[in-house]
């Protein structure tokens, strides 16, 4: 594939702006040619009535949405994070509330489906937080202080029936099965 195509892929997956030097290193390409490919790509985006644009700032490049669509995007993102939770998200949040800290794999075991997107969505809304456990080499999830306060509680163990439900037999069984498999 051409340099232009390659650099477009990298800018798309990168979450931070990249310098010409970083891009050239990743692509093992000469900086000069790469710079030309970038200029061409920027021109393509500018001409083509596109929804994306490349911002060049302090010698760093970043792919972003076109400025003209900013209002639409802003509203879309706001709606995405402000509505009521979907049933699966609510279920995941409930499990994290009563059973946190809980690992992603454990949560998935309880729900029977992959939960990557749901976790990300709950994180984005500030309802849960992620903590990396070095000894287990895994991320663990708990509800945030903001969320506990939103529920009108002093701490999460003030949820109804917390003590009993936190150690519910069926959950223990399912999670014990998780440990076996690993």
């Amino acid at each position, binding site marked *: 594939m051409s340099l232009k195509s390659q650099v477009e892929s990298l800018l798309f*997956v990168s979450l931070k702006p990249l310098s010409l030097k970083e891009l050239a290193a990743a692509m093992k390409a000469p900086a000069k040619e790469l710079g030309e490919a970038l200029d061409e790509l920027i021109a393509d985006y500018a001409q083509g009535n596109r929804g994306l644009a490349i911002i060049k700032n302090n010698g760093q490049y970043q792919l*972003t949405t076109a400025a003209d669509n*900013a209002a639409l*995007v*802003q509203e879309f993102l706001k709606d995405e994070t402000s509505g009521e*939770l979907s049933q699966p998200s609510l279920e995941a949040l409930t499990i994290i509330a*009563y059973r946190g800290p809980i690992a992603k794999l454990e949560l998935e075991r309880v729900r029977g489906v992959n939960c990557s997107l749901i976790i990300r969505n709950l994180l984005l809304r*500030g309802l849960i937080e992620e903590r990396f456990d070095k000894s287990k080499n895994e991320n663990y999830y708990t509800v945030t202080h903001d*969320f506990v306060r939103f529920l009108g509680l002093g701490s999460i163990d003030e949820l109804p029936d917390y003590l009993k*439900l936190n150690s519910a037999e069926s959950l223990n069984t399912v999670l014990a099965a998780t440990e076996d498999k690993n």
Partner: protein
Amino acid sequence: MMDVTCEKFSGPFGLLLSLIESEEMDITEIALAKIADEYVAYVRANRGIDPEELADFLVIAAKLLFIKSKALLPYLYTGEEEEEINDLERQLRMYKEFVAASQKVKELVLSPRRSFLPPLTKNRRGGFNLPVFCPPAKLNAALLHERFLILLANLEKQLAKMQEEKLPEKTLEPKISIDDKIASIKQMISNKIKVNFSRLLASAATRTEVIVSFLAVLELAKQKELFFEQDELFSEILISRPADAAALNNQI
């Protein structure tokens, strides 16, 4: 003693297909009849068969033996069973197509071509000034509690179901062995001179055991350990040892 031609197979159809292919035959009734014994031997040896899948293997074994017996004694069959045999052939042909397709899917999965997404993080939303905390307005502690109870109830149901599915498997395992069944049939026959076939089946507790009994009797017949008598079509089948049968015939 057994020629292990298929180290790796996936489920009962996989085994069936690899046996037919190792004989370089097409999927036909004749082919199915021909590999019936090999299939049964394979299931008997129980190599690489997941215990949870054993029942599915036995169902196919029973169908194959049925096809084989039809090939040997065609006049016993009325034609009604034709549909069932065709059905197995059709299923197998279709399965074969999907196995071939799965190899192509495997190539695609293993090939370097693949599309990627940015890692799932909130950075992409930078610059849009989104609030960091957006709780769903209607959510409260009582609702969380209610949802959690529903979840636990569902989990318990699931666990109970899994338990249920596991139980027969445990009770089935000691009974499932065809070798045991052969031994017990030999025992029955040595105690009595003749045994009714229906009596053998009557002692079977489950459908799987009926199949196992049937397989065991066929196996004994093949090894010429048993002698079968039947006065007329659909009448009771009597099973005896060849020696006893010979002796009885001599007396008469």
